[in-house]
Structure formats: structure tokens, C-alpha cells
């Protein structure tokens, strides 16, 4: 098992079906450590208290939406460098620009393929390794 496969993922989505799909795909990719949260409000304390290496978050969620979660993550000194992949149905140009400005590392729109998810995660991890 490679060091990367020991990475701890946090998957944030208000739909249990989508959390399960992402978790299964991550497991298929060899990432066994996947924790779930159903919105930004429940995710943030987990992120602050845990040792997460990668955050995959939806945008449109009750409570704290994904964009706000991203901003809170970037505002936290300990979490500022955490890789964040936005996985969402939000597809407006200005939203993607806003997410990029807020410091997102990758953006995948739903519906997505397993190959796209893998490609974006690999890209983010290799960019992080090169930094």
C-alpha cells in the first residue's frame, strides 16, 4: 500500500447516496480511510479536530454550504493548505470563478465519471507533492 493510499479523506455532501458513491469510488481507487459529513457545519469541527489530508465537498447544502466551508478552511491556519476538491452540480461560470478565488484546488461537476474523479484527485496530489 502506497503512502498516498493511507490518506484520510473527508467527503461532505447532504445526500447519503452521493456520499456513498464517492466513498465507494475512493475505496476502489485504494483510499480506504473515508469519513463522511452531511454539510459544512458538521464538517468543520471534524476538519479542525481530525487529521484529514483531503476534502471533497458539495456546494449546495443546508446549513453551511461548500463555498463557505472552503473559505473557513482557507481562513484556518492549520487547514489553509488542505487540498479541497469541489464536487457539485453548481455549474455557473461566476460560481467556478468564485470557488477558484476562494482557493479551491479542483472542481468537478455532477454528474461525473470515476475517471474524472481519479484524474482530479491525482492532479491535486501531484501538484501538492511538487510544491
Amino acid at each position: 500500500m502506497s503512502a498516498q493510499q493511507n490518506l484520510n479523506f473527508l467527503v461532505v455532501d447532504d445526500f447519503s447516496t452521493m456520499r456513498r458513491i464517492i466513498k465507494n469510488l475512493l475505496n476502489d481507487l485504494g483510499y480506504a480511510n473515508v469519513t463522511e459529513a452531511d454539510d459544512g457545519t458538521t464538517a468543520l469541527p471534524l476538519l479542525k479536530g481530525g487529521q484529514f489530508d483531503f476534502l471533497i465537498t458539495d456546494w449546495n447544502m443546508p446549513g453551511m454550504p461548500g463555498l463557505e466551508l472552503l473559505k473557513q478552511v482557507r481562513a484556518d491556519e492549520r487547514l489553509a493548505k488542505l487540498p479541497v476538491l469541489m464536487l457539485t452540480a453548481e455549474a455557473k461560470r461566476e460560481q467556478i470563478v468564485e470557488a477558484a478565488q476562494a482557493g479551491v484546488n479542483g472542481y468537478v461537476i455532477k454528474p461525473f465519471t470515476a475517471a474524472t474523479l481519479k484524474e482530479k484527485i491525482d492532479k491535486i496530489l501531484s501538484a501538492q507533492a511538487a510544491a
Partner: protein
Amino acid sequence: MSESLDIDAYAHAVAALAAALASRDQQAFRTALSAFDSVRDGEVLTGVRKVTVELQSALQRFEVDSRLIGLAQHQVPDARRRLAHVMKLTSEAAHQTMDLAEQCTPLAENIAGDAAKMLESPASRVAADAQVVSFLQRVVEGMGLLRARLTEVRLAQGFQDLTGQIVGSVLDLVDELERALGELARITDAAGGMAAKEQTISRGLGPTVPGVGKGDALAGQQDVDALLQALGM
């Protein structure tokens, strides 16, 4: 009722009366008095007509109010329950499909694993039979494909998230409608503003729905990648 008088008509009638009086002309006086009465009758008729229109309008508003109360108390909550049920059913169906796909995956893996073992074992009796070897190779290959398709089946259950988000936004609208209708039913003046809950970009707009809220939504992942690249990512 502050209906303005038709002063000119009265002035004309009074002047005719005054002239008839001055000339002591009885016939002219009767005619002028009759004209004066006509002016007064006309005024009363206008008043009656106005009251009738107001009464009709009040009755119509009462019917509209009754309909609004019906909508607020029955139809709208009913619509909400139906939509919530659709969310529940699609969620259950998606999870059940994933359960079944997950149960099938190890079956395919085990069959493929056993076939591969038989192929790899030179001492195996089957290894000598070309037909059996060919079959086992097809089993390994087919099970690999089956496993990949099962992954796609699980991924396809993402429809529940997308449709659920759309139904969720309609549910928000229904809640807002119910609140507004309740207010409308309480206030007889139905002209009050119905401020829809404003959807903001920062909260998220939900999945793109054809024909709804046409904006600058991107068509697919390739467009997103191109935009991010243009932004220097």
C-alpha cells in the same frame, strides 16, 4: 360615499326653474321641475350602480380568499408531502440498487479469481483442454467487465442527488408559497407582496434544469477545466 355632484346639470335645471318662476309660466315650471328630478334620479342611479359593483367585487374576493385558504391548508401541504415522498422513494431505490451492485461485485471477483487460479495452475486437469481454457479466459475477462459495469451502475445512482436537489428547491418554493398564501388568506387585501426567497450564488443554485433559470451555466466538465485553466489553475 363622496360622489361629486353634477353641478352643471343642477345649475341648468335650477336656472330653468328660476326662469319659469320669474315668468310665472306653469308649463315651463313643470318641465323644469321634471328635468331637475331627472338629474337627481341620475345621481341616485350612479350611486346604486357603484354599490352593486362594490358588492360584486367583495363577493368575488370572498371566493378568491376561500380558494386561497383551500390552497394554503390542503393543496400546498399535500404537494409538499408528495415531493418529500418522491425524495424518499428515489433515495431508497438508489441505496437498494447500490446494495445489490455491491453484493454482485464480490461474486464477480470470486468467480474471476477462481477461473484465474485454474488457468495459472499447470497441474490442473482443465489446463490441458483448450476449450475449457478458452472458456476460463472469457470468464476472467467477462467478470472484469461486469465489475466495471457494476461500478458504473453505482455511479449512476448519483441521479438521486441531482433530482433530489431540484426537488428540494421546488420544496423550498412550496414552503414559501404556503407561507405567502396563509398571509394572503388572512389579509383580505390580496395585493400584498409575495417576496420569494432569494436564491443567492453563495448558497448554491442547484443543478442546471433545462428551460429554468437560463444563465451562463457551463455545459460540461471540459468547459469547467477550460475555465479553471484560463484562471491559472
